[in-house]
């Protein structure tokens, strides 16, 4: 056995080449070589044997070779039965390779493929999300119509999966099923509708992709999700962003009125861009014809702007086309810089971007004019890039820059790349026609080129000169003479034809030369190219009509030659001309008009950009690149005259709470971190871990489902969950509380002596319900692994280094209610309800841990009180007012610091300059990270700055000077004790453990007054978080709100109730 596996090792290097030889034979064999056929059979026998062996290594080896065959496009379908047996292999790599095989050949071997289905059905219920996802992926990739119902069922189930990764795969499966059986459309749309509501960024891109493929016309499904999609956009992975942006562009074109009509000529609109919606609205309303942009329209434009900075060219292009198609014209300018940046990328990206720029630059020259030089051509560029750049340069040419451009063109004309040089000459021609000032210069330049040694250049010049002369035929006799001379040397047919045509047209201006040219041509007629022959005939006819004395015989000679030409076109033309110009009895009335027919004034050709007509395709699409409508291209509709009802996008209140609070709230709280904001990610990880923990809880899927429902309902409305919990909190909880209290006090005593210096970072309140316990238990498993981590990081959090005397200050008798930041609420009226109900928070926090086991995970603030404190009153600050509040964010300046946000207002009527922090009078050990000085603050202006202060875990005041240019004001910040805390996520078990290590000296207690009827866990929690920045420890026991510093002992509770 082992020798077998060793054989493989040797093979892994050299095996590939041997294999190559073998497989070469396998392709030949079907074509008939019988001798080889047997060896092929033998080889496959060999593989079959390996697949049937019970050694994984042999199987793996066999599968690797089979995959090698598939990769090269060789047929390996006859191994199907042998391979499919291994679909349930324990070895994950064998399994994956079998999947690869299955997906490739299932369509050909439908009956056998069915054997594998049950394996996938089982795997769909696997606790591991990766296995669930990959089972769904393979199942949906098997293109066997019989299993459509099974796929449908699997998709439906997966779309409700807890893991966003599985849901993402479900979204992909939708498209696969749709292409297999379009009849399922209606059912699939239901699933899409459901997944569109999903708030995970992971799912968003995939489901929109499915939407685009299955039901792009069901724009009504988007309404409710529009704002969510706009807000999530920056956090979606880059591929999803592209798809979503394209879809939203189409959506915007059907739902909003055009922002363009107003724009024309209103330059000042530029300023509006950075102003808020309201201001914009005000301004636009002032105008005669009030156009105000729908706030949703503005939302889309604003939220896509940061994506212009993406590293992914496809995203940048997608945003660029969005701006091009739906933003006011004055705002579209910002995309040009980003598009120009993409030109540094590889040639394929350049090609597509240049094409799009070419289309844009026709309509709005101004956008790219500042970047003119970026389109200068390098000799190393591939020809296709060069021609596109040239195209853009032509589009951008105007009176101001034409002289620079012409100089640049001169260099290009000399390029070794003759195709490019020819294109340049065409370009010069176009510039000459477009800009009348330089027509003569260009013409002269082109005439100079006629003496160029390169024939292609000369030929191209002739053609272009012909076109130019046609537009202003009067004064150019000299040039025509010059060109006539060229006929002797030039051989390119197009050029010769052009010269002949030109002479024919102007034969009356060059009466002496024209007959001579005709004579020469008559001589060489038989050896000329067809194109030239036709023009000789034309020239002959024209001369016959104007100067028949000299040319009659010549023309007839030529007509005779033409009569017997090999080319039927020429024979045809000859016959036609003869009938028309040579008078005879039969010729009708037409011949009288022959001269008018031949020498009519011909309209000058219009030299146009080949990109002129491309703008009816949406930019950045395949159709635009190819300039043909690609299959599946969705037209961009015109703006509606009247906007459809904007209220369809409003989301109902309950749904709003459900969909928005977690993300929306978090966003509001940390405006400084929005680009790829973490709030989302936190939610994500909690989501994922929720499924992890679910699955870890094993086969009790019923219980898992139950707790999920619980989570859902608690999301729906906090009242709902709180009432639920109320009902659950029974006598048992009371007893539990008492027990806890006693234990706490014991712990206190012990740890006081032992762990005098132990820090007590983990401030916790725990509020949770029975139903949560399953998830909590599992999360605590992972938590326990990280315990040691916690302990080794004593210093990271606050409170830790309190000195003894500090602690004396903070003994039990200090009531939290006395702290000046807390407004005693005597009547338990409705507080600003926390968006997250305790059970949900418990879930979120508990689950966070399983993903980040090695670090202390700082929980999100449960609640951020909006209360601000006065730092400097406007009267004492000579007009400068300053307020501060604690945003309860982890401070970015240092992990021991508390972040403080200071809002500065200028209430005076003059500018306040140079606001900065002056002298600091801090107690020993205290540190402060000051904000950057503010240059100036306008009257009525306000600015928010953030700073970090390390209070050394004490409530000592930080005094410092707030200085302006003229004055200095002494101010102080004293932190309420609650703000010194940081919520930390940990399990109940760890909480207890940590709690055990604490000293009682750090204790602070407070009395919360609440009416009995309103006494619910969420209420208590609400009050607690109002005064202190703490998190919630999920607890298996009911209703114990714990925090290390804030002990809600049962006695207190009794007072309350």
């Amino acid at each position, binding site marked *: 056995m082992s020798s077998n596996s060793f054989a493989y090792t040797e093979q892994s290097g050299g095996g590939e080449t041997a294999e190559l030889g073998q497989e070469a034979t396998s392709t030949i064999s079907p074509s008939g070589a019988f001798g080889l056929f047997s060896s092929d059979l033998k080889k496959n026998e060999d593989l079959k044997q390996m697949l049937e062996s019970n050694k994984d290594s042999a199987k793996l080896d066999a599968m690797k070779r089979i995959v090698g065959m598939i990769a090269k496009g060789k047929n390996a379908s006859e191994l199907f039965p042998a391979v499919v047996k291994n679909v349930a292999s324990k070895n994950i790599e064998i399994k994956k390779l079998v999947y690869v095989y299955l997906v490739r050949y299932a369509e050909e071997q439908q009956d056998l493929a069915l054997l594998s289905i049950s394996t996938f059905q089982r795997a769909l219920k696997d606790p591991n999300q990766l296995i669930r996802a990959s089972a769904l992926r393979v199942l949906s990739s098997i293109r066997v119509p019989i299993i459509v119902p099974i796929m449908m069922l699997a998709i439906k189930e997966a779309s409700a999966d807890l893991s966003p990764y599985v849901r993402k795969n479900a979204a992909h499966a939708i498209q696969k099923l749709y292409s297999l059986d379009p009849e399922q459309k209606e059912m699939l749309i239901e699933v899409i509708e459901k997944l569109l509501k999903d708030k995970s960024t992971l799912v968003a891109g995939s489901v929109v992709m499915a939407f685009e493929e299955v039901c792009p016309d069901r724009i009504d499904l988007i309404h409710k999700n529009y704002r969510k999609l706009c807000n999530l956009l920056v956090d979606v992975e880059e591929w999803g962003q592209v798809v979503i942006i394209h879809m939203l562009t189409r959506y915007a074109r059907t739902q909003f009125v055009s922002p363009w009509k107003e724009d024309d000529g209103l330059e000042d609109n530029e300023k509006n861009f950075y102003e808020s919606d309201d201001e914009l609205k005000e301004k636009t309303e002032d105008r005669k014809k009030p156009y105000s942009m729908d706030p949703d329209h503005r939302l889309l434009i604003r939220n896509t702007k940061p994506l212009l900075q993406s590293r992914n060219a496809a995203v940048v292009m997608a945003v660029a086309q969005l701006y091009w198609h739906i933003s006011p014209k004055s705002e579209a300018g910002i995309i040009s810089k980003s598009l120009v940046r993409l030109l540094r990328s590889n040639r394929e990206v350049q090609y597509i971007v240049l094409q799009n720029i070419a289309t844009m630059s026709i309509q709005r020259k101004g956008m790219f004019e500042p970047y003119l030089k970026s389109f200068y051509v390098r000799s190393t560029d591939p020809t296709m890039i060069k021609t596109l750049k040239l195209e853009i340069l032509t589009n951008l040419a105007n009176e101001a820059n034409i002289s620079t451009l012409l100089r640049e063109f001169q260099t290009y004309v000399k390029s070794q790349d003759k195709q490019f040089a020819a294109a340049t000459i065409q370009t010069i021609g176009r510039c000459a026609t477009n800009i009348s000032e330089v027509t003569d210069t260009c013409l002269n330049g082109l005439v100079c080129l006629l003496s160029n040694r390169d024939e292609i250049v000369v030929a191209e010049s002739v053609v272009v000169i012909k076109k130019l002369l046609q537009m202003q035929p009067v004064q150019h006799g000299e040039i025509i003479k010059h060109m006539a001379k060229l006929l002797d040397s030039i051989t390119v047919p197009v050029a010769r034809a052009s010269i002949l045509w030109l002479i024919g047209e102007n034969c009356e201006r060059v009466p002496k030369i024209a007959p001579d040219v005709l004579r020469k041509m008559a001589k060489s007629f038989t050896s000329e190219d067809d194109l030239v022959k036709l023009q000789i005939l034309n020239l002959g006819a024209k001369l016959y009509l104007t100067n028949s004395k000299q040319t009659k015989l010549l023309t007839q000679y030529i007509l005779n030659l033409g009569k017997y030409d090999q080319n039927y076109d020429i024979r045809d033309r000859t016959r036609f001309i003869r009938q028309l110009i040579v008078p005879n009895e039969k010729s009708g009335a037409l011949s009288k008009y022959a001269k008018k027919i031949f020498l009519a004034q011909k309209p000058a050709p219009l030299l146009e950009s080949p990109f002129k007509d491309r703008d009816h395709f949406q930019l*950045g699409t395949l159709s635009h690149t190819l300039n043909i409508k690609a299959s599946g291209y969705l037209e961009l509709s015109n703006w509606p005259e009247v906007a459809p009802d904007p209220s369809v996008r409003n989301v109902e209140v309950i749904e709003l709470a459900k969909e928005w609070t977690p993300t929306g709230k978090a966003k509001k709280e940390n405006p400084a971190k929005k680009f790829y904001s973490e709030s989302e990610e936190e939610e994500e990880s909690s989501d994922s871990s929720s499924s992890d923990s679910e699955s870890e809880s094993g086969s009790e899927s019923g219980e898992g489902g139950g707790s999920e429902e619980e989570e859902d309902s608690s999301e729906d409305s906090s009242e709902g969950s709180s009432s639920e919990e109320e009902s659950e909190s029974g006598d048992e909880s009371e007893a539990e509380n008492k027990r806890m209290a006693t234990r706490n006090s014991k712990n206190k005593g012990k740890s006081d002596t032992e762990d005098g210096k132990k820090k007590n970072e983990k401030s916790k309140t725990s509020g949770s319900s029975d139903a949560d316990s399953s998830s909590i238990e599992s999360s605590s498993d992972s938590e326990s692994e990280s315990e040691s981590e916690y302990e080794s990081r004593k210093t990271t959090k606050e409170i830790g280094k309190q000195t003894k005397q500090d602690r004396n200050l903070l003994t039990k008798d200090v009531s939290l209610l006395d702290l000046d930041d807390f407004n005693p609420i005597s009547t338990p009226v409705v507080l600003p309800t926390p968006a997250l109900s305790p059970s949900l928070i418990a879930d979120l926090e508990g689950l966070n841990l399983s993903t980040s086991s090695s670090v202390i995970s700082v929980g999100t603030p449960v609640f951020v009180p909006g209360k601000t404190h006065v730092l400097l009153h406007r009267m004492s600050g000579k007009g400068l007012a300053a307020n501060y509040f604690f945003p309860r964010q982890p401070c970015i300046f240092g*992990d021991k610091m508390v972040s403080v946000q200071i809002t500065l207002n200028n209430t005076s009527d003059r500018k306040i300059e140079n606001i900065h922090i002056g002298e600091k009078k801090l107690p020993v050990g205290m540190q402060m990270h000051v904000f950057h000085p503010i240059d100036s603050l306008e009257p009525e202006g306000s600015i928010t700055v953030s700073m970090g202060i390390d209070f050394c875990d004490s409530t000592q005041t930080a005094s410092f000077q707030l200085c302006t240019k003229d004055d200095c004001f002494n101010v102080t910040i004293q932190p309420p004790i609650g703000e010194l805390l940081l919520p930390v996520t940990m399990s109940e078990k760890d909480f207890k453990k940590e709690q055990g290590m604490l000293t009682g000296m750090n204790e602070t207690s407070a009395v919360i007054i609440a009416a009995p009827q309103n006494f619910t866990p969420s209420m208590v929690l609400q009050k607690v978080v109002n005064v202190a920045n703490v998190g919630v420890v999920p607890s298996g026991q009911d209703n114990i709100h714990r925090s290390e510093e804030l002990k809600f002992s049962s006695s207190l509770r009794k007072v309350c109730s």
Partner: protein
Amino acid sequence: MIQSLFLINCSGDIFLEKHWKSVVSQSVCDYFFEAQEKAADVENVPPVISTPHHYLISIYQDKLFFVSVIQTEVPPLFVIEFLHRVADTFQDYFGECSEAAIKDNVVIVYELLEEMLDNGFPLATESNILKELIKPPTILRSVVSSITGSSNVGDTLPTGQLSNIPGHQVGIEYTNNEAYFDVVEEIDAILGKSGSTVFAEIQGVIDACIKLSGMPNLSLSFMNPRLLDDVSFHPCIRFKCWESERVLSFIPPDGNFRLISYRVSSQNLVAIPAYVKHSISFKENSSSKYGKTIEGITVTVHMPKVVPNMNLTPTQGSYTFDPVTKVLTWDVGKITPQKLPSLKGLVNLQSGAPKPEENPSLNIQFKIQQLAISGLKVNRLDMYGEKYKPFKGVKYVTKAGKFQVRT
């Protein structure tokens, strides 16, 4: 979206194919070969080709064509970006993106493609995530796995897959916590005949190599951030921080990645560090304004087709001439201002061919160590969220980008 992928080498062999939906016959590539024939040069093969039933979108990288088959409308850049990402991943896994490397690792390639694309839509493209799913090949691992039959496929979902911090692994502890930044600036310039600057701008990137334990929060600030004209970011960077404070704040992924790329517009460009004088003899001239030596200078000239060979004597360095591609490469080395290098000699023309009327333009490569020519300076790097002291380093290099001298 992407239906099938074919890898084609320079001689036109299809050596790998992969299908995500129904199998598309190899014969679809005939349209591609047709286009390839039409475009004399590989560089000129159009990236998007339309065929009767499909559309082919291709990229050319490392002498290989990646040809994807598309059936319906899709943003072409989407596919192009993705294909480049695939090529980069191969490069990352196998050290090179070549036919041999891909053939040797065909199984890993297949597993990778399987993970990167589902039903033609990108699934996992971040290299850190992929490396968790499928371990890159090493000699040791292949020996071990062949004996034990253990796999190189991970069986848990990488955490990075689910977060927006692409690829930061939480569980890893490094013994040396390091953060290195390379500021690499490239000068793109076109110098005119007379030596005047026709066009010049600086393109810069900051590449990071970060190995930090835990979940560090880094913030990188510059002495002169206003220099940066246009910037594109790695997804880990918080855009708002940049907007408001001009500070790069981010939680880094593990390993190597490109942090930002930026452009400095031409107004800020101080001076071009190298001049080339040319007439019958090329003269090179350096203004060592920066007190740094310019090194690694290479001059490449695409000679006209009529030049079969040449006989030159450089005063410094060595030259080679490839008679097939007609490329003259002169490796100059370092330049000292006292002694200017020159390259003189005879250039033979094919008999009967007329003298080319214009001089070929010169492409110049050079390198200046320890200098960012735009003057960009990293001010400081702060780390929050972890308490160990990382080892930090910043390196500056200026290179010639697309630096061309017209003659």
